[in-house]
């Protein structure tokens, strides 16, 4: 099993009903668990506990949706796409909750509410990354933390390689401006 590709393993996982199915799944889990929990850790702004929960949910989704995977495609972009969607849902949920909290606060006091960016006081690179929107943050994490190729990222985001390069260019340029504003020392 060890020598099998991801796609071969998931094919076994899809089609077997005996121990082979479990073994194939275990292999996939062992191959991806560490990098995916790391991805969640960064994407969810260093929330370790949530990262572990998300990892658990991610593999549950893989079990539930195993038949949706097309074995002619690569597995890696597929698993990352699921992970990114999970994080996007979480950002949306948090945003709604944050708006609700702000609404409550505003009705209780007359204080001005500052957004995330204005609350950032530390000139730390990670804090600056965290002021960016979820898609830009995902681009940065995938490229610079996980060293994913442009091709892999294009498959994950379902777009052309040129689009990924262009997005990386503008994202890095935007980050560069944020860092300058924060007097970050290179």
């Amino acid at each position, binding site marked *: 099993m060890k020598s099998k590709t991801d796609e071969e393993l998931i094919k076994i996982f899809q089609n077997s009903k005996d121990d082979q199915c479990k073994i194939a799944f275990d292999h996939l889990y062992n191959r991806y668990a560490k990098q995916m929990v790391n991805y969640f850790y960064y994407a969810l702004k260093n929330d370790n506990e949530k990262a572990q929960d998300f990892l658990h949910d991610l593999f549950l989704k893989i079990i539930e949706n195993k038949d949706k995977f097309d074995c002619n495609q690569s597995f890696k972009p597929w698993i990352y796409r699921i992970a990114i969607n999970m994080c996007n849902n979480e950002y949306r949920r948090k945003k709604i909750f944050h708006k609700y909290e702000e609404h409550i606060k505003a009705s209780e006091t007359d204080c001005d509410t500052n957004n995330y960016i204005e609350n950032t006081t530390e000139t730390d690179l*990670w804090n600056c990354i965290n002021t960016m929107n979820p898609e830009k943050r995902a681009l940065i994490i995938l490229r610079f933390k996980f060293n994913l190729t442009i091709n892999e990222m294009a498959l994950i985001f379902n777009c052309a390689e040129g689009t990924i390069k*262009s997005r990386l260019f503008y994202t*890095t340029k935007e980050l560069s401006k944020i860092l300058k504003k924060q007097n970050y020392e290179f």
Partner: protein
Amino acid sequence: MSSDKKTNRVFELAEQFEFSELLDMDKKYILSVMTEKEYNDLRNTINSLSNYFMKDIEP
């Protein structure tokens, strides 16, 4: 060449080379898109990101 293709090329170069390491033709190319300072800022940001994530902070 479209502006998107230009920015793609700039990003490819900035990931790999300091401005001083570029061939003259690439320097000219960069300067048709942005200033040397902007290129250096971009390059520094890319380097900072690579160094930051290389530290391998893990949960």
